[in-house]
């Protein structure tokens, strides 16, 4: 089979080597799309045969034989599919797990959830402030520092108990917002405000953003809503855009 397939590209007329061409001319091997055309869009057989050719040449064999094809099939299958663990492995880990006694349950400990990093309750964004346009003295940029863990007495914003201790990093590059790696959603509050306002270390609402993880889901729509409704003197456009994004997420 392999030999015949390999021979066909050489003997096929020009138009048969075109992806559409083989569908018309070849009587004997109808039915299965790209497999009939070894040089056409890659089909399953094509991929396997090409792999087999590679293995065969690696083993310095004169021609592709059944073992090469078998190896090629095996490798492709292992890439695409996995199977559940074998029984002895399962029995082994079961024995290990089942030996430890069941943990005692602490009474009155609130919602019983795993530690926060195993939950999906953390916000998937952090708030940061853009630095204002400053002169090129790169080292002296006073960017309002956002300490995300800060507690404030402002009652109107929800509270965030995020475990991450990092504060927002200061960008050395003027005007370019720092996007935090790993965060999906960066809300930027450009502090392009009159000095009076920005003299206070960030807009008060930003500082007060603390969220109770057990109440708010990952989207934390409520925070940005509050942010906008606070009517901060921030540049309205980016926030407005975010507000529109929230509407897309609202399921109500």
């Amino acid at each position: 089979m392999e030999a015949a397939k390999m021979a066909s590209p050489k003997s096929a007329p020009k138009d048969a080597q075109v992806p559409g061409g083989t569908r018309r001319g070849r009587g004997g091997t109808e039915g299965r799309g790209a497999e009939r055309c070894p040089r056409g869009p890659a089909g399953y057989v094509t991929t396997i045969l090409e792999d087999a050719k590679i293995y065969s040449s690696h083993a310095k064999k004169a021609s592709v034989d059944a073992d090469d094809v078998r190896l090629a099939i095996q490798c492709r299958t292992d890439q695409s599919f996995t199977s559940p663990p074998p029984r002895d492995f399962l029995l082994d880990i079961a024995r290990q797990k089942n030996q430890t006694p069941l943990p005692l349950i602490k009474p009155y400990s609130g919602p019983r959830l795993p530690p926060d990093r195993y939950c999906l309750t953390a916000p998937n964004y952090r708030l940061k402030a853009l630095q204002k346009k400053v002169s090129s003295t790169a080292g002296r940029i006073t960017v309002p520092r956002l300490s995300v863990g800060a507690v404030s007495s402002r009652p109107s914003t929800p509270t965030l108990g995020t475990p991450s201790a990092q504060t927002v990093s200061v960008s050395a590059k003027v005007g370019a917002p720092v996007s935090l790696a790993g965060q999906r959603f960066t809300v930027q509050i450009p502090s392009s405000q009159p000095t009076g306002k920005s003299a206070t270390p960030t807009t008060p609402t930003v500082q007060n953003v603390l969220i109770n993880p057990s109440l708010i889901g990952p989207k934390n729509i409520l925070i940005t809503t509050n942010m906008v409704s606070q009517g901060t003197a921030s540049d309205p456009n980016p926030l407005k855009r975010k507000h529109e994004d929230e509407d897309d997420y609202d399921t109500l």
Partner: protein
Amino acid sequence: VVVEDQPDVSAVLSAYNQQGDPTLYEEYYSGLKHFIECSLDCHRAELSQLFYPLFVHMYLELVYNQHESEAKSFFERFHGDQECYYQDDLRVLSSLTKKEHMKGNETMLDFRTSKFVLRISRDSYQLLKRHLQEKQNNQIWNIVQEHLYIDIFDGMPRSKQQIDAMVGSLAGEAKREANKAKVFFGLLKEPEFDVPLDDEDEEGENEEGKPKKKKPKKDNVGSKSKKQDPNAPPQNRIPLPELKDSDKLDKVMNMKEAARRVRLGPECLPSICFYTFLNAYQGLTAVDITDDSSMIVGGFADSTVRVWSVTPKKLRSVKTAADLSLIDKESDDVLERIMDEKTASELKILYGHSGPVYGTSFSPDRNYLLSCSEDGTVRLWSLQTFTCLVGYKGHNYPVWDTQFSPYGYYFVSGGHDRVARLWATDHYQPLRIFAGHLADVTCTRFHPNSNYIATGSADRTIRLWDVLNGNCVRIFTGHKGPIHSLAFSPNGRFLATGATDGRVLLWDIGHGLMVGELKGHTDTIYALRFSRDGEILASGSMDNTVRLWDAVKAFEDLETDDFTTATGHINLPENSQDLLLGTYMTKSTPVVHLHFTRRNLLLAAGAYSSQ
């Protein structure tokens, strides 16, 4: 405790060795077949049990050792002789023609390395042994010893009918010792309460946990007997969460409802209220209803989980933390005030899974919802914020079923990886792994006392596992197809199971025996539920019907004694017709879920399918 199914190294290796000459396999098999067919009638039924496991094992040997043509002719010659209930297996086998096909098929590999259990009387066994130990039959004797475990009992040989009732699983039958362990099937004691009287009588007298004398007594409110039930587990055998005030209120509510409960029986059948999911386009894959029947959840093939309110009261989320700090925490209706009216709706849709949702379960306190999916995760959702809280990753393969413990906190899940896992909501890894099934675990249920878990599997067995130490304490065989529904009776003593073979089987947990068979359904049974006091068993099936069976009659006068347990001489009465109390057809809507309300109204759910 010995894990019985674990093959030791030598057994595994020797399973790979050549057993005799492959070209002679057909001769060996036909020789044995001839011997069995010529044996006495009383022994023939028992000895015929050998055909199927020997056929499969010999075929797999030939395939594994790459004798393809011998395997093919062996299959063609003998596959028609097998019992009809093995046809599905044979179809799978016919496509397994090369050694490569076997890799990745964990069920077949497990089958090869485990011993198929047969229960044969001593007389029949002696007959067989004598025949096989003759010189010319040595090879097949080796094969028998290699792949079969013959559990011998002293007594009369069983009849074909008795055998047919109990065989059918991929693992054969259950060894006697598999069902010997003591199982604490009794219920845990309910805490005693001062039940305030209901609204009709306005005096607020406190009565010790008993409802007012006018109403019928409920005997599952534990205050009647002060003695410890010897069959009940000690209260602290497994740690259980403490009762919160809200739980106590709920229990009081439950008792009040129980007092108004309709007593069901053959003369008084429940009304059935059917919730039809329209326009689900065959995508409805899981349903659950809360214990107080206030919410219904559907899991769908499009990976959404949808929660509806069954009562006129709408579903609301809690307010944001900002608003919560403004409310008066001391007010009586604080639980109402924390809800945000703006979010009230009849339907909440929960997004998060990345595959069809195959199982859903409400927590008993209605604060949480679990859903398990083809994406391999089990998700915990909050029913107060309607957001996802945790994703439990452990099965890396589709999870077919999940259920909360009747006391909350623990939950069990079972999936394609052939194990069931016990989790607690506050541990990101499972607490127990129940391994032993040969094929996917399709159904998982907690016992009412939360100390045991029943798992039904595609290997056609049901296993009962001890939560305390993960041991398998019972193996029930008899179904001829994968099990899709399980229900414990409210008194904890019995288990009802339903499978693709359309039969409902009833099991006595204490003795480890099959005690009943309910025939009637013509398609897979996806829903089983006992009424609140165990008088009626309701079953719902793909054949678009709900059937009601008389459970009281099914479980009375049982012949469960040591003789039956030891010999498997069960005598199931052909009483399905007598036990059937009613058959209720739906309009081409397969029944996916059944639920008895606290007052014994039967709720059913399914998705309308236009075919």
